[in-house]
């Protein structure tokens, strides 16, 4: 009986080895990564979803209130709507000009001219600095006696622009900071994408008599599409989650003019101690970003299907 069992086990093990040995090794290699994601990504998402259904002030145990937090944030006149609009304005104001600027500079810097390397490096430098340092520096730049007002003085007749204390100007001021920090980084990504386009396509277009615009429109843009999709998705994700500038430069003010969803989540969670409400806003933002990611997958699939 024992012999029979042993033989059976040995046969099963041989079969398993043949079919699953490689899979097991693979699983072992990815396990640390999977565990990391489960603990630091998936668990917090599930916990946030659970907390979003509770009234929780950090110090007392959470109390289940169903969809109360969602009803609160979606009620008429809620600060959530203002933050949502601010977030879209910030993303739109930051992302679209940044794409155009980064691509235009990439097109310039793929040309051969003297000092190209130096300029590329100069434009890239801001991304190396931390957002905290940048925020402190830009607050000085925007100070009434700062260099920004000195720079625009000839245009304003010396009247100082309240860059960070006017609710119409402050959002624009933050957009300028955000673009300034990252455009050099995305310029380098576009340059890499442009350099990966085979020269034969350009030669063929020239032979066909295409002018510069036509070459850009029908050769460069389509072949740059994977890079463009990557840049678009990453900048949109970063834009929607923007928090540091709003926290360090304006604290969401004046009068909520720079309160984005990221900042509102912080404010509800800590100063206001409404953890449940903060979690509910996080879940809404999460849903928005999921939709964005699906659009990205759709666009990429379309690219490879054609």
């Amino acid at each position, binding site marked *: 009986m024992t012999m029979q069992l042993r033989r059976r086990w040995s046969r099963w093990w041989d079969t398993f080895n043949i079919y699953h040995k490689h899979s097991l090794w693979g699983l072992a290699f990815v396990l640390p990564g999977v565990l990391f994601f489960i603990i630091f990504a998936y668990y917090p998402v599930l916990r946030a979803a659970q907390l979003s259904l509770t*009234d929780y*002030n950090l*110090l007392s145990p959470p109390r289940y209130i169903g969809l109360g*937090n969602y009803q*609160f944030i979606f009620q008429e*006149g809620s600060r959530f709507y203002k933050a949502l609009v601010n977030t879209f304005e910030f993303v739109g104001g930051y992302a679209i000009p940044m794409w155009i600027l980064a691509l235009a500079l990439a097109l310039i810097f793929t040309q051969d001219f003297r000092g190209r390397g130096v300029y590329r490096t100069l434009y890239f430098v801001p991304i190396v600095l931390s957002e905290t340092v940048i925020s402190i520096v830009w607050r000085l730049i925007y100070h009434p006696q700062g260099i920004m007002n000195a720079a625009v003085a000839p245009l304003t007749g010396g009247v100082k622009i309240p*860059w960070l204390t006017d609710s119409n100007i402050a959002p624009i001021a933050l957009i300028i900071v955000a673009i300034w920090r990252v455009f050099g980084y995305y310029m380098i990504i576009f340059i890499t994408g442009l350099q990966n386009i085979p020269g034969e396509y350009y030669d063929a277009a020239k032979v066909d008599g295409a002018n510069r615009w036509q070459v850009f429109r029908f050769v460069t843009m389509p072949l740059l599409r994977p890079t463009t999709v990557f840049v678009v998705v990453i900048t949109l994700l970063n834009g929607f989650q923007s928090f540091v500038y709003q926290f360090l430069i304006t604290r969401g003010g*004046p009068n909520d003019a720079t309160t984005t969803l990221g900042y509102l989540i912080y404010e509800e969670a800590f100063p206001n101690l409404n953890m449940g409400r903060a979690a509910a806003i996080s879940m809404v933002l999460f849903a928005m970003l999921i939709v964005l990611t699906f659009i990205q997958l759709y666009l990429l699939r379309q690219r490879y299907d054609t």
Partner: protein
Amino acid sequence: MRKSWLLPLLAVLCLALSITAAGAQEPITIQFWSHDYPPREAIDRDIIAQFEQDNPNIKVEYTIGPGDDDLYRDQLLTALAAGEGPDLFNVLARSVAELVSSGAVVPVDYQAFGFDSEQAFMDSYLEGTLEGFTGDDGKVYAVPTEVGNYALFINGKLFEEAGLDPVEDAPKTWEDIMELAPKLTKKDASGNIVQRAFDFTYPGPDALMSPRLTYGAMAYQLGGEYFNEDKTAGGLDHEGWVRTLTFIRDYAAEFGGPSLTPVAASFVEGNTAMVISGAWYMPQEIEGKNPDLAPFIHVAPFPRWREDMVNDAGSYLFGYGLYVNSQSSPEEQAAAWKLAAALSSQPERYLTEALLLQPRTSVVENQELMDSSFAALFIADMQGSPFTPVIANGGELPGILNRSMERTLLEGMDPAESLKIANDEITALLQPPS
């Protein structure tokens, strides 16, 4: 003969045993957190060093948190929620409601302070100064390390340049400030204000002073309160609030509104002639950052309204208190209260060296100290002033009030309309979440 030496031997043995027992007391390490205020830190450290010498079984780990009250509170509450909070901590009185309602802190052990009864302990403090540290159950949950209020700081040099006497011409009312402003405001050729007469405390990332203490107190002087009597609805629809915000709006429109440079900084730089602040502002900001300005500083009581005063009060009171963590073991709690007692045992020194009022009656009764203290005027102006009102889930209150001010000052919204929005927000806060 034998018995004659047996008794002393037994006594020596008992003494040796008791000494050994005392020496064998379990060593305790207590964590003590406080917000950053450098003038106080040196005194704290001296007292802690002495405390550790007197109590060799207790070791104190002293951590200074951020000076920004909001950031400090975030860190503290997160640590408490994670079960990693300090045994003893210093935090603003406005946290008392949230800490008590969630059971995060324990009532004061008055015996650790050498009192036989809670009443005797309370009697050792100035009347009303423990109210900011009292829970809804009537128990006191913290000992104040500081109770303060705001008064009017005057830059005597700028007054004299304008042909004014900083003592004789010091404004007594809000209307006086409005009338003095044209003499003390300077503009450049482009119309930019280069010297301000006075600035209200506006909300902003660098605001050192709380806008609520002035804004709320101005309304309180006219009878306006945060909530209705039974705390079921907001009280910002009161005429006192509307009149206050209208006054601030009119002043800002004429003599300068919110600026990126907070008034706390522009006064120290010598660019603003008057500012409302606490006694701590003198050592921390003026002497610390522009000592040349210090000899020109005069202080006057918190202004009142010329007419229609309902409550003759100065600014709202604020305070910091020492709380003990309910999650700490009984031994740690006992050691923490013992340390709190030590930190409360030298109020004269805190007042003299750091201008912090630990409101013990012994301090105020010390006439010599009062006569020589810069803080004396502040202490005298405290009479009749209540603490800033609090509710358990009141974390949003400062934001609500700040936004009511900003809607009017920055976006031109009518004060009554702006206050109605704020009032609705406060009423919503008072309704339990469903």
